[in-house]
């Protein structure tokens, strides 16, 4: 494993834009779908394709130790307070892949333009397409980390993000400190917000004895999340 350098993800040729069913689910539809809305979603997904400028990358680091009762993972001279839940999932990890990715700010701008023209439904759908596409991009980065790990005979874990599972979002500062700022396409603001908005960051464990455990909403306490039990 080559540690400490930025691997840029080849995301241009992979499917990133949101899928219709997921967007419709996020709009609240389960079985009966309004045909007009369905057609609109199809059209807007098509239009969004030109509005997605994906960029992603990851940096590998060797883990010094994972201390589950403390909920901490030690790397170089840093420790990440990931909380016990995440630490337990990464107990057997030998390396961590720190990743960041973004679909750019073009969709967000388009969404705002529609909203300010009064086209509220279109603006909202563009925003959802952006959110879904950012999630899809994180999945693409995840796959690349998996391929890299498997080429060295290692397994990977699920991905975990600062701000989820009681891992404080302010830990984004530590995460971003591992990336060469001049080479990345995301800026972290003073309030730990990534700009562009449609960006995702996180960690993926890598190790010989690691198992991929599917994400469970049971791990998260956000009862009103729009994704809760939808996937």
């Amino acid at each position: 494993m080559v540690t400490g350098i930025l691997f840029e993800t080849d995301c241009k040729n992979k499917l990133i834009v949101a899928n219709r069913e997921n967007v419709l689910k996020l709009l609240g539809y389960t079985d009966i779908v309004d045909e007009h809305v369905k057609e609109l979603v199809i059209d807007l997904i098509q239009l969004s394709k030109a509005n997605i400028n994906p960029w992603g990358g990851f940096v590998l680091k060797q883990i010094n130790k994972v201390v589950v009762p403390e909920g901490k993972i030690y790397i170089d001279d840093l420790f990440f307070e990931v909380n016990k839940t995440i630490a337990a999932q990464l107990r057997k990890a030998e390396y961590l892949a720190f990743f960041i990715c973004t679909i750019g700010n073009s969709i967000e701008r388009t969404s705002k333009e529609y909203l300010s023209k009064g086209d509220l439904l279109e603006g909202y759908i563009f925003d959802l397409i952006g959110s879904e596409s950012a999630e899809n991009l994180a999945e693409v980065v995840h796959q690349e980390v998996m391929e890299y790990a498997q080429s060295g005979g290692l397994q990977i874990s699920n991905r975990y993000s600062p701000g989820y599972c009681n891992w404080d979002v302010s830990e984004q500062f530590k995460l971003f400190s591992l990336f060469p700022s001049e080479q990345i396409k995301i800026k972290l603001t003073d309030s730990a917000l990534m700009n562009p908005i449609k960006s995702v960051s996180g960690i993926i464990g890598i190790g010989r004895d690691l198992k991929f455990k599917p994400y469970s909403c049971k791990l998260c306490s956000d009862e009103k999340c729009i994704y809760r039990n939808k996937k």
Partner: protein
Amino acid sequence: MEELLSKIAHCVEFGKVDKTAPYPPDMKGQEGADELTKQAIEQGIPAETILKEALVIGMDKVGVKFSEKKIFIPQMLMSAKAMNAAIEHLKPFFQSGEVKRKGKFIIATVQGDLHDIGKNLVKMSIEGAGWEVIDLGVDVKAEKVIASIEQNPGAIVGLSALLTTTMANMKNSVADIKAKYPESIVMVGGAPVSQGFCNEIGADFYAPDPQAAVAFLKAK
């Protein structure tokens, strides 16, 4: 007059914006909130009557159906669009003071936070309930909110935040606003905000969603 008002309310309820709008399919080719409101004004129906006895009634029905899960966000947004088309015709009457809205609501996403969409949905619902909304945008410092209260005495303030880090700025903003205007009413909302946090920072009301925000304002 009654028939025209109930037609306008129907257009708002079902999201029929204007004659060219394809939505809803069963009203294709019919006049929408835009044309009918124009006609109502031309017929001399007072703007206040149009607002209260057609538009707000239509939006109320939408709110009820949404909270009963009989309709989804898309229908709500189409209704809001129809409502906005009608409101355009009433604007001159708001400006002249002939029509009084229910009150003023200042809305902002707090300093350090760039999230927009949630705030916009809340804004739209509150406008739909007959309030004038002053939207200060995103990444708004407390001073800007305070200046807006100065210009709009008695306005209710709504603050939105989407990250736990910017909730700290929400806390500071509420403290600054309350220090300058202790009698001001501040509503807070956003995905990570909770009733407990609202109590802790001394805000007056926590709205988990736009419907709760509207219900709170209605009771004012």
